[in-house]
């Protein structure tokens, strides 16, 4: 079908399309190339003793570490722990943040009342609350979950609230002229028109959720990727630190791509 379609184009346009495809292919091969080059250089300098692999680790040592974690059955336990904390924290932060932002949009008085508090909580480095969180929630997953929610929820509130407030005034006027109630304005206009902002808030919060869960695991944990990183650092097993970091990269990227996929599905038909 695609091929048939392109047959209808002029030679110049086919040339243009070909050039575009070539450009995309070039960019991708460069991206992969730089990765292979860096990994190769890293491996080589470790093997040839240019750097001390005890300090820098190396791709092959990382592969071995991951394989041995897999063999003793703890790999997916650690991944699962962190992934669960991150996803649950992300979901709660997004849901609560969205709900609070809606409430703040609804009532200007409540918004003005809470504004200074939100600003202060936003500015506060959440890690300062670490000791309190341990005392209140113990040393289990709950504490880490709480930390994850705490890091994400304020960002979610502020992001969504500003999107709700920026709802097109003329479209609001239009709905009011039709006799719309506040609830109708909310469901017909404010929520759908803020969908792009919702997606961008999700993207920001993917990062926030990982910060929260890993930070939480640094403070208090017995399992998870953050735990492996801290533990590896304490016992000077940098292979372990590097392995956990690498897995973290892959997971965070995967989660981000899921949001991008969601964006493509949800925003398919809008002009925003």
């Amino acid at each position, binding site marked *: 079908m695609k091929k048939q379609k392109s047959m209808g184009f002029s030679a110049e346009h086919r040339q243009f399309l070909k050039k575009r495809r070539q450009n995309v292919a070039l960019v991708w091969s460069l991206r992969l190339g730089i990765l292979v080059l860096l990994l190769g250089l890293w491996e080589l300098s470790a093997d040839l003793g240019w750097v001390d692999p005890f300090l820098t680790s190396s791709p092959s040592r990382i592969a071995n570490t991951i394989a041995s974690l897999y063999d003793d059955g703890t790999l997916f336990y650690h991944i699962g722990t962190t992934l669960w904390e991150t996803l649950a924290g992300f979901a709660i932060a997004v849901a609560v943040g969205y709900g609070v932002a809606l409430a703040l949009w609804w009532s200007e008085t409540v918004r003005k009342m809470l504004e200074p508090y939100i600003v202060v909580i936003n500015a506060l480095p959440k890690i300062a609350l670490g000791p309190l969180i341990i005392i209140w929630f113990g040393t289990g997953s709950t504490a880490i979950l709480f930390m994850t929610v705490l890091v994400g929820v304020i960002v979610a509130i502020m992001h969504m609230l500003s999107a709700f407030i920026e709802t*097109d005034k*003329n*479209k609001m*006027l*239009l*709905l*009011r*002229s*039709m*006799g*719309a109630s506040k609830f*109708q304005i909310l469901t*017909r*206009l404010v929520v*759908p*028109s803020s*969908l792009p902002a919702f997606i961008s808030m999700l993207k920001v919060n993917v990062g926030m959720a990982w910060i929260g869960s890993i930070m939480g695991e640094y403070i208090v944990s017995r399992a998870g990727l953050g735990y492996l990183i801290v533990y590896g650092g304490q016992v000077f097993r940098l292979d372990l630190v590097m392995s956990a970091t690498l897995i973290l990269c892959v997971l965070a990227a995967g989660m981000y791509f899921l949001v991008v996929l969601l964006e493509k599905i949800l925003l398919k*038909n*809008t*002009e*925003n």
Partner: protein
Amino acid sequence: MKKEMLRFSGVSLIYHTKLGETKAADALSFSVSEGEFVAVIGPSGCGKTTLLSLAAGLLKPSEGLVERQGSCGYMLQRDELFGWRTVEKNIFLPLEIKHIKTEENCERARALARKYGLGDFLQSYPSALSGGMRQRAALIRTLATDPDVLLLDEPFSALDYQTRLNVTEDVSGIIRSEGKTALLITHDISEAISLADRILVLSPRPARVTHEHTLDFGEEKNPMRRREMNGFSGWFEILWKELNA
């Protein structure tokens, strides 16, 4: 004597802000009868939009009385179609808001859309429509609830000149053939002359009606042909002078 659809009696409106109060309208009095097309012109910032908000009941007058018979439909400068809804769903929006989205009303709205050339675009999104077609869709959305009075707030001013002439012709034709009462706000003198039966001239803020003219184009309602008629430039001159007085 035709039935009066809209009547302003000594309407004043004061806006209150932190820095003080602004009088936007001062003892406005006029009326619009059934089936009549009235244009209101005035210098920019004189409170024209305020007048429409008052007519729509979105603002309460500080003094005086606004009386309207029946329902009204509001049309704004930009089409304000919702990009996440299909053209059809956009047209159904006022039906949803008013809780009268019956199959009968939907079919009536669809019929209007088909009658005025949007039939093939009902399932498209507004982004697929040209500027002129978007404004036509906005008008059909306004007409979907079969309002008794149309309030038009410079509905053509955001369009480029050529589209504007075409859309003006379109919209005027639709309003005339549906027999609607219309109140048009504009700062464009020739647009007012080409469309209206009667023109009200407003003073700078606070808005008052300074002059009122009934146009003498007889039965000629087509904006394009009106522009070519002899009386057109004469009216332009008169209104121009009154606006700049």
